């Protein structure tokens, strides 16, 4: 009986991609996150909504520990990604970031060619065996195919990445995460710099990647959260208010704050 429960919990833990336990975070003396407890399922898209300054980006940026480059960030509690505590002392930052890809608000391709952008992460991490230029070509092609960009850029792989449109740049920024085979993709308002057409295209792409990757997406756009995510988390003032199936959260929110926010009474 006991073993059965243990197995069950184990199985449950298996289908969580990101679990945070009592996560508190300070920028200097300012506390930005309060006791964040979240279990984010793997293989689906979870969106993170809330008004400006509610800590949603901060939470996202502490999952790949990119927050730490600021230097004055202090953290208590922990985050487990696929059961690994990424804040453990013996964890290597490089490995964390290999497992967890991040897409930023503004497309930020590196100042290099399309091809070099795709291979950047791969060349950093995959050093155990040597790759021929044909291997590299395959990697570039399959990554670009996955983001539905191959047909558009196959003839200009050696052009500067900045020459692409914003929508294409953002797709490229997603494509360059794929060669190192991450488990989790973090997206920080990935469509906020794009026009409606670009937004639709990138949303479609994110939906395509669902299943293979666990995706956590911060968004300012409630309509986007509603149409493009399976589960939804609502945060307010550094705390998690509600975490539900997206359909439920928008139709029958449990908390009054959530209801008021999605109805636009504040935010």
């Amino acid at each position, binding site marked *: 009986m006991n073993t059965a429960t243990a197995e069950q919990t184990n199985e449950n833990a298996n289908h969580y991609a990101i679990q945070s336990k009592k996560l508190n975070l300070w920028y200097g003396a300012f506390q930005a996150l309060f006791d964040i407890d979240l279990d984010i399922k793997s293989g689906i898209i979870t969106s993170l909504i809330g008004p400006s300054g509610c800590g949603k980006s901060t939470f996202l940026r502490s999952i*790949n520990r*990119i927050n730490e*480059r600021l*230097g004055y960030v202090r953290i208590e509690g922990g985050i487990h990604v696929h059961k690994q505590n990424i804040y453990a002392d013996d964890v290597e*930052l*490089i*490995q964390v*970031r*290999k497992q967890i*890809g*991040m897409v*930023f608000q*503004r497309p*930020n*391709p*590196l*100042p*290099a060619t399309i091809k070099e952008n795709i291979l*950047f*992460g791969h060349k*950093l*991490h995959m050093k155990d065996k040597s790759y021929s230029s044909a291997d590299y070509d395959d990697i570039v092609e399959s990554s670009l195919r996955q983001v539905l960009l191959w047909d558009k850029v196959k003839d200009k792989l050696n052009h500067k990445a900045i020459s692409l449109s914003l929508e294409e740049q953002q797709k490229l*920024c997603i494509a*360059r*995460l794929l060669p*190192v085979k991450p488990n989790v993709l973090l997206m920080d308002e990935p469509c906020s710099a794009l026009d409606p057409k670009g937004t639709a295209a990138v949303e479609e792409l994110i939906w395509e990647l669902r299943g293979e990757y666990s995706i956590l997406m911060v968004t300012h756009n409630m309509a986007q959260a509603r149409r493009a995510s399976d589960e939804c988390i609502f945060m307010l003032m550094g705390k998690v208010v509600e975490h539900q199936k997206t359909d439920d959260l928008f139709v029958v929110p449990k908390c009054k704050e959530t209801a008021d926010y999605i109805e636009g009474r504040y935010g």
Partner: protein
Amino acid sequence: MTTTQTREAMNEQFDRRTLDWYIDKLVEIIVFISGISAIIFVVGIFVFVTMEGMGFLFDSFSFSEFFGSEYWEPSDEDAPEYGILALIAGTASVTGLAMLIAIPFSLGTAIYIAEFSTGKTREYLKVLVELLAAIPSVVWGFIGLTIMNPLIIEIFDVPVGLTVLNAGIILGLMAAPIMTSIAEDALKAVPDRYREAAEALGATRWQVIYKTVLPAAKNGLLGAILLGVGRGFGETMAVLMATGHAVNIPGSVFDSVRALTATIAAELGETAVGSEHYQVLFTIGIFLFLITFVINLTADLIVRGIKNQ
């Protein structure tokens, strides 16, 4: 009737030029004059230098002798010879060695200041670098003469310490601060989202710098190096004091040399105004002017290039 009156009163008010208006115009004129004065001075200096050197340039100038002969013998009474090959070799060797020293130093310092140091350390370092840039060149020359000279004689067991090595080190240290400042600006101009992107992809700090920041800043860094070279060509006093001032094509860093600039500085006071020797010195001046002009212009265009990207 009343409306017309008010309108006239208003027009009168609009027409009235206040004191502020005159001050504004005055300042505009003063600023305009200061602005174009730079151009006037540069053109004026170039015209003056060219006029003074003109006589020699048109009468007895021989390209092959001037640039091809290593004999600088202006005071030979029978047949003075004006070959600046050895002087060019002197300037080039000192500048070359100076750059070998200054480039790694300044780039290293700039990378440290821009990418690694934080808070107070960064502020102090920046102030220090600017202080270094403000040391007068005669002080550097003095250091070369009184400290470096005996040091080189003792360490390398050579008869003379006023050599390419001495002047190269001094000039390298002189050029490094300004190069550091410009290189640091170039690194600062690299948008932070490049660093963030590379870091999020799992690059270490050094990989971020080496694979992302340096390539993105390479034009600015090249500009910094070129300005250093320009500084090296133009520097006079320190080089005059530290090279040994001997006309000589150097075979090693332990040879004394003489620089183009130092030749003008040392000899101009002793020549008769308008004499051939005097005109030749001005011709060297034209040559130096053109070199530094081209170097600075190239550096400027390169640095501008990154800003427009």
